[in-house]
């Protein structure tokens, strides 16, 4: 019988577990708050897949579910920034995979514009991201969220709500 000494291992496991935790408890000043708007069929389901797979993520994201990215009005993002969001993440189905066949194409055009608009309003582009995550891409969702949150954290909380 092999004697097992795995305190370090389990220690490491729990430690590496929740980057969100460290961020929330650790940071002295306000932790960043990020609004996510996702489509019901791909990215929301992708976030579900990530959850089912226990893919740990930072806890700074709050999701709003819409049927399709095509339903998303860029003004939603502006509203979020106006209300003081530190970042806005938008995600839908990969091009070609839209549950409504072409909603995400219309969305893409809008977001490309929105990206510039937001930049012109003096908000660094690192605070706004739109991407595609499919229902089966739990790991990708984890990466998208983690990377984006890390990026926004680097910039820190936005000072003042006004645009």
């Amino acid at each position: 019988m092999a004697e097992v000494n795995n305190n370090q291992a389990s220690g490491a496991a729990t430690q590496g577990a929740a980057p969100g935790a460290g961020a929330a408890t650790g940071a002295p000043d306000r932790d960043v708050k990020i609004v996510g708007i996702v489509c019901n069929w791909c990215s929301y389901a992708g976030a579900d897949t990530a959850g089912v797979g226990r893919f740990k993520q930072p806890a700074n994201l709050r999701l709003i579910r819409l049927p399709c990215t095509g339903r998303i009005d860029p003004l939603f993002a502006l509203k979020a920034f106006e209300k003081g969001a530190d970042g806005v993440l938008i995600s839908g189905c990969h091009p070609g995979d839209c549950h409504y066949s072409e909603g995400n194409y219309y969305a893409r055009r809008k977001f490309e514009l929105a990206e510039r608009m937001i930049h012109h309003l003096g908000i660094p582009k690192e605070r706004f991201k739109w991407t595609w995550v499919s229902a089966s891409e739990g790991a990708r969702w984890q990466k998208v969220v983690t990377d984006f949150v890390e990026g926004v954290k680097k910039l820190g909380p936005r000072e003042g709500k006004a645009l």
Partner: protein
Amino acid sequence: MIRYDAQSAARTRDRLLKEVETDVRDCYQCGNCSASCPAAFTFDIMPNQMMRMLQVGMVDKVLDSKSIQLCIQCLTCTGRCPRNIDVAGIFEDLKTIAAGQGRDVPEHAKTFNEAFMNAVARFGRLPELYMMGMFYLGTMNPKMAMGDAGLAVPMLTKGKMAIVPRRSKGADEVGRIYKKSIEKAKAREKAFTEAAAREEAAAARAAKAAPAAGAHGAGASTADETEVTA
């Protein structure tokens, strides 16, 4: 009976993740690395067994093995690993660790490397004959030398070898590079081993101190549990 040491396993794993960007936990023991390895027939430990030892923390055994010294860095194992583990990278890193820790490694690999680098450090470029000479002196093994002495004839007649090596410009800088980076390496290893020692001491103390309680496997409690099973 072997003793699994998750502590040193975790330590080495993290280090390999940093230095080679590869995780030994990915290995599922298919043995492709061992099958691919052209030098394995001279190894004391098969590459796939090395991966296993790293997984369970038998790090000293690995660092003292002939295998890491006899690896010829042909990268076949890395190229064919179905789990995309950089096996050769791990071997390379372990070899540098062993070197940095000044371990007394088996085979003549160390002698060869040092003969080589000293020659380069001195002349800037590799003076082959000189290096071979130093190497065979280092091995204190005249038989080996004789084995290759035969080569000297064709090499000289074919003008493949200079008897008297010349120092090239930039040799001084090479010398400095060699000196500086080896010092850094030695320092790094020292720091690493000391940190490891501290960690283990701390863990040991914790194991004694804490009572066997707490669900989420806080280090101490599990350590206690294992003592019960042991």
